[in-house]
């Protein structure tokens, strides 16, 4: 799905838990997510902390969308 959206000319960031699958399907901008049943959440955290975590991930996704890349790139913590 990411590939077809990108092919249409819209920059797309894939927020995905299983990064190797995202690489295989051909996403170019990849942001690792938290867990399969809650990619952008963490039920163990309090409401405020959980929302902050989600915001951090979305902000990372927005940074990915603004980054010039030449090849598949994973925007993980150590890069930002």
């Amino acid at each position: 799905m990411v590939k077809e959206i990108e092919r249409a000319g819209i920059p797309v960031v894939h927020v995905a838990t299983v990064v190797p699958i995202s690489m295989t399907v051909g996403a170019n901008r990849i942001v690792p997510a938290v867990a399969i049943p809650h990619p952008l959440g963490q039920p163990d955290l309090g409401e405020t902390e959980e929302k902050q975590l989600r915001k951090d991930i979305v902000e990372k996704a927005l940074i990915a969308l603004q980054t010039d890349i030449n090849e598949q790139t994973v925007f993980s913590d150590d890069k930002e």
Partner: protein
Amino acid sequence: MLEGKKTAILGDRDGIPGPDMSNKLKIVHYLNQFFGQIGGEDKAGIPPRREDGPIGPGAALNNSLGEDAEIVNTIICGDTFFNENLEESKSEIKKMLKAINPDLLIAGPAFNAGRYGVACGTVAEIAKTELGIDVVSGIYPENPGYEMFKQYAYFVETSDSAAGMRSAIPDMIKIVKSYIDKNGELGSPEEEGYMPRGIRKNIFAEERGAARAIKMMLKKLEGEDFETEYPMPVFDRVDPVDPIKDMPKTKVALVTSGGIVPKGNPDHIESSSASKYGEYSLEGVMDLDEENYETAHGGYDPVCANKDADRVLPVDVMRDLEKEGVIGELHNKFYTTVGNGTSVANAKAYAQEIAENLLADGVQAVILTST
């Protein structure tokens, strides 16, 4: 490596002691929580465990293998645990395999289950590259686990769902039997019935290369079918689109394969092998709450997503960022489907339509979330 494995299987006549169990081909079977008969999605979080003997589909495999081989242990791991705790799972399973020291590993079959396919492939990679154990498995060709790990196992082609178990098992047994008969030296994919591993092997051909090449070229010139000896890999990659320059003026849309839908799933998007996608309004929606949204996805434990669908489709945070001026606006529709055993051809078709709609609505960037 397999020398002598078959010889001690005779006997058991006229009071001669029965077959020496220790000389049978010793097999370990890898299964997920579902086929390992522990439970469904609610048990997908269990760490690797080792059981004695065959379990689930292993029983059928074991029976058909008869006296030539035996499944001595079954290793079971929850699909979610495996993929979320990759390094821990790998090292734990490696330890188990080392302790059992089997002659062969059977993994799955995984059909079109993405997490399970990746798990089977990863276990195959450990077995093959780190312990020198050959692996037989079964998988649907579109399962990402095949593309990622094809060089580590003899994968037979299965259908996309467990309904294909009945033909998958005999196909896998055929490979195992051939493996025993040939002392581990299996022939080509066509000959044996496994899917190509992308591995080249030197063989003696009847004709020299130049003659074969000329023959192929002549066939090609005549427009006849010919079989290449070196198929080119198919890379379907899309070049990255230029980045967004001015995010505070950008219209961003949310798309998900995580199956988030309005409560009640009005368009009846299937929980697996989805035959459609949904387009839903976000007009005036500030937050996806429990009363109005849920997930239709049948491939992961839905509890967390049903409780708060923002955990999959982050509408609440996008609204905040919109208010703060970080993004121009959140597109007032979201697109959703269930990426669970959904065929690549379908997913591609949905995304093409979605992309057309997004372009028509002036969307400039997309965040696509996957579970």
